[in-house]
């Protein structure tokens, strides 16, 4: 299993290298053809105002372009803006391209940017992505081709919010003319234009031949909906589709070995962890938490359950996130059930007649809240944790609930569970997006997501400092210290970091997997003939 995973990682890496444009240079891309992509669900909408999930974002980012965009190397790259200048922690000034027109002929300028941001951050009816973007207030026009994006309070990750695919600029005339219909037929500036949407079946886009930048190779891209995992893989084999997103993990190794197919992957931004609730004894005792993390064989979970579709996590952040610090959890808290039992005994627990530890006659029982099917292998991980805790004399009772119910339970002011299996994506790719709402004292639900009930003034000061600092080096260092505190106090047992995986026919070239799930770009993919 271990070698299979390394193999898959290696394949992913080789593909990523091979598909790097510089390396691929000797083979000239062929123009033309249709790329058919299968994914499990249809888009909610093709307008970031309504849609923040990947199945829609994959499509509308071909049509709508933001001012700047986060590249696959996790660096911010210019798109509709040629350059930008951080004026203060609340303001960034963008110089815009002057040669761009929307697909409906409307000229692109500062007014269009202002229109897009005003629409998204309208306090009466905010867009769905307003909740992710941080304290953005809106856009201010400086002149026709200069615009400021302004935050209402110090927010140094501001550029990351503007670089999200959600910040795609919409054609103001099209929105006004089409009304609600715009979200079904968006008009932007991108390398592809919207063509057709057959609900729950397919959405297609065609190449825009008067695109301002490098023109796409493909004539058309068709996104099909194939909900059933095995049906998706069969459609790839029969040639009905050229690429599968969210492939069946159990079949990855078979496809990786088959010369007719290519598997490409990148380490993602989601960390799945078992979160501790400090308000519930005995989890409030750090010795018990230490016993729990040392009694969890994280490596065996990653190797045996994830089938190569996840990488071991070394903290609550993923490696691609700005501010990430590897914490060396494997050496800090190595898997050692013997030591874990000793720790529990130090905390006053003694083995009972049934093998379960007890203190003053009360058995050590932990309640675990777990979704099933929301995060890859979430239920299996909860069950493995349960079995491993049994080894150190801890009984775990799991409540498996459907995601919407788990969500509501986690969001409540009181959390009755000791531990929660949960995932978290650092959507902006900046540590602030996770370290503040997940662990700051004032972020206890329902306000934020500090379901750990972590109250540490020293930690709070660090995340506040980092939010208002404009020096990237300083911020990185502060976030490092904050993560040290989380590791010391053991807020969670981090299990794995997601992988973004695509399987395609071997003649599909030029696809570079992106660490951010919804940022997968298909604009410069081509089909070899």
């Amino acid at each position: 299993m271990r070698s299979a995973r390394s193999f898959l990682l290696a394949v992913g890496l080789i593909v990523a290298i091979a598909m790097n444009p510089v390396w691929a240079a000797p083979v000239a891309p062929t123009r033309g053809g249709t790329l058919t992509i299968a994914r499990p669900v249809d888009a909610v909408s093709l307008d970031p105002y309504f849609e923040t999930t990947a199945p829609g974002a994959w499509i509308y980012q071909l049509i709508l372009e933001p001012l700047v965009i986060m590249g696959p190397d996790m660096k911010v790259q210019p798109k509709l803006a040629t350059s930008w200048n951080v004026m203060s922690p609340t303001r960034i000034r963008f110089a815009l391209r002057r040669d761009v027109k929307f697909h409906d002929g409307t000229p692109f300028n500062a007014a269009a940017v202002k229109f897009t941001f005003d629409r998204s951050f309208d306090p009466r009816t905010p867009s769905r992505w307003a909740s992710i973007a941080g304290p953005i207030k809106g856009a201010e026009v400086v002149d026709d081709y200069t615009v400021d994006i302004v935050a209402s309070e110090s927010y140094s990750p501001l550029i990351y919010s503007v670089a999200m695919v959600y910040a795609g600029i919409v054609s103001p005339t099209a929105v006004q003319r089409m009304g609600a219909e715009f979200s079904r037929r968006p008009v932007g500036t991108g390398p592809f234009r919207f063509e057709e949407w057959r609900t729950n079946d397919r959405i297609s886009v065609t190449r825009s031949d008067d695109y301002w930048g490098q023109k796409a190779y493909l004539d058309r891209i068709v996104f099909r909906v194939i909900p059933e995992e095995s049906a998706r893989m069969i459609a790839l084999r029969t040639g009905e589709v050229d690429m599968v997103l969210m492939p069946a993990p159990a079949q990855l190794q078979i496809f990786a070995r088959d010369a007719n197919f290519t598997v490409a992957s990148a380490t993602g931004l989601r960390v799945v962890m078992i979160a501790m609730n400090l308000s519930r004894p005995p989890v409030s005792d750090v010795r018990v938490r230490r016993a729990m993390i040392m009694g969890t064989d994280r490596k065996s979970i990653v190797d045996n359950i994830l089938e190569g579709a996840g990488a071991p996590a070394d903290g609550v952040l993923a490696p691609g996130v700005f501010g990430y610090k590897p914490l060396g959890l494997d050496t800090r808290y190595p898997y050692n059930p013997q030591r874990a039992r000793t720790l529990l005994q130090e905390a006053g627990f003694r083995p009972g007649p049934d093998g379960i530890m007890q203190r003053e006659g009360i058995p050590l029982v932990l309640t675990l809240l777990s979704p099933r099917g929301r995060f890859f292998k979430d239920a299996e991980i909860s069950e493995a944790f349960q079995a491993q805790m049994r080894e150190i004399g801890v009984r775990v009772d799991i409540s498996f609930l459907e995601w919407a119910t788990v969500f509501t339970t986690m969001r409540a002011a009181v959390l009755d569970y000791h531990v929660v299996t949960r995932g978290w994506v650092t959507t902006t790719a900046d540590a602030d997006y996770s370290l503040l709402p997940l662990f700051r004292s004032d972020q206890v639900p329902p306000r934020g997501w500090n379901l750990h009930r972590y109250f540490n003034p020293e930690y709070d000061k660090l995340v506040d400092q980092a939010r208002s600092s404009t020096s990237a080096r300083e911020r990185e260092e502060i976030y490092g210290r904050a993560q040290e505190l989380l590791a010391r106090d053991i807020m969670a047992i981090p299990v794995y970091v997601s992988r973004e995986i695509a399987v395609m026919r071997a003649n599909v070239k030029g696809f570079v997997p992106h660490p951010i799930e919804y940022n997968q770009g298909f604009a410069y993919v081509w089909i070899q003939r």
Partner: protein
Amino acid sequence: MTRFLLRRILAMIPVLLGVILLIMVTINLIPGDPAALMLGEGATPEMVAKLRASLNLDQPLPVRYVRYVGNLLRGDLGRSIREGRRVNDEIGDVWPATAQLGLSALSIAVVAGVVLGITSARWQYSLFDNLVRIASLFGLSMPIFWTGIVLIVVFSLWLGWFPAGGRGSWLHMVLPAVTLALPTIAMLARITRSTMLDVLREDYIRTARAKGVTTRSVLTRHALRNALIPVVTVMGLQTGQLLGGAVLTETVFSWPGIGRMLVRAIFARDYVLLQGGVLVLAATFVVINLLVDLSYAYLDPRITYR
């Protein structure tokens, strides 16, 4: 007849009002807030409250019920919570696909089921009869999910005769319609066989034979028509089965129908879309049952409606 029809149509109104009430109450009992789900992990309570208000989710259930029914009278099913799109448009997109799939499956099931049933009854206890009875047991007990995947593997992957999924030409139609029809074929074959056997023992059949009518004519003109009443009843009830099975079939074969729309609406807690979808399904079922009732009079002239 006209009065009967009128009365039945009027009776549909309380049924559908009850359906709406039932849907709204049950949905309200499920934990999970669509606004919070939509905004995701990063939303503050203020944002969620704002969205709830803009979607009219903050109003009490009776108010929402009255408002919904009021809009319904004007033919307006409301706007989807998650997509902001008119539910009428959404259902207009997916309903034809489900109707097409359901009708094809029903046609296949009726033709195959009745023919198999008659043949079985004609040659009772023959090898053919035994085979049909075993096969129909199999057809009734196999889950749609499983038969669907098996058909895809055999006919798409190995033989390459039909596409593995999606909606397009009639070729796309074959596998999902057959998959959906299989349990109903089995059911109809069994029912047709047993009612035919009953009818064939009646006195008038013996009379017909005695006066020299051919076997073929006895079967199709005398026996079948009388045997059809239970068959048609089961057909009407099976339509509900077909609509339910469509959810699974649509998932396996990537068929863009109402079943998958409903599943999506449930997970997103999109109350409005869910209400609209279930309402349309319920209305379909009620109408089909009315048609079944009407067909009795056609099949058996002794039955009249008052």
